[in-house]
């Protein structure tokens, strides 16, 4: 990132921080007169990215959640970053709230562009962009595929349908 973000938040990666990020984002998007539907998608995608940090990044140790937001004429670019265990999230069974595994598919579906960077032991960064105005629904172009697996987690295999039984 070549220039400083318009908003930078750094806080302990704890569940209570996710709503703080969401409210800050909502305030900024309101000031920039974003479409309510885009704002709803932004709040959802950023919440999922922050939740991934809280649940997966640091296992048993404390760590930080970092969120940068930059505004441009085109829209918002949002980075959600940790310095934890890296890009291969595993189910952390020590946490009280197990993950469904839907976070990244939702982020991909709700954002206009989405990038995931990181490596084992060097943390993870999710970069998302959201345009002021959309010509099409990103969820139609990148639909959430798959369904619930037998273990209760999301199986992204697009050949699977969500069981109804």
């Amino acid at each position, binding site marked *: 990132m070549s220039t400083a973000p318009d908003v930078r938040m750094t806080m302990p990666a704890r*569940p*209570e921080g*996710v*709503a703080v990020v*969401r409210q800050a984002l909502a305030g900024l998007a309101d000031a920039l007169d974003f479409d*309510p*539907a885009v704002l*709803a*998608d932004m*709040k*959802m995608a950023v*919440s*999922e990215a922050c*939740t991934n940090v*809280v*649940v997966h990044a640091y296992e048993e140790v404390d760590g930080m959640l970092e969120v940068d937001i930059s505004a441009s004429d085109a829209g918002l670019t949002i980075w959600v970053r940790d310095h934890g265990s890296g890009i291969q999230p595993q189910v952390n069974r020590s946490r*009280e*709230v*197990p*993950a*469904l595994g*839907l*976070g990244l598919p*939702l982020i991909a*579906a*709700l954002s206009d562009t989405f990038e995931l960077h990181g490596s084992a032991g060097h943390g993870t960064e999710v970069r998302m962009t959201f345009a002021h105005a959309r010509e099409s629904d990103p*969820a139609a172009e990148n*639909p*959430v595929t798959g*369904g*619930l697996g037998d273990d*209760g987690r999301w199986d992204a295999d697009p050949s699977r349908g*969500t*069981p*109804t*039984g």
Partner: protein
Amino acid sequence: MDANPIVLDDAAGDVIVVVVEGEHDIYTTPTLRERLDEAIGRGGGIVVDLTGATFVDSSVLGALLDARRRALEAGQGFVVCVGDAAEPGVQRILDITGLVPVLPVISSRDAAVDAARATPNGTGE
């Protein structure tokens, strides 16, 4: 006063309604799980009323799906209702995940109570 309350309403008698209002995510999901556990423990049908909810994330969906599975295993009905005009922060995630027919999700609370009372899967089948 809690801005994001989750309360049990047993006015429907044999069907307990878990009323969820405000914004809910990984922070409030443990409370939701406790309320759902309590509702399942009462032995009747369960309705989760999201009419007053303004935001739910995948943590909440995980809690609902877990509760649904346990309720069905116990032979209890399980239905979610969202009212006639669900908030975008609720309807969107239900739509794009395809979970509306799975949970299942319907509009009316009264209809949801009837469905949860009538059949274990709330679909009338």
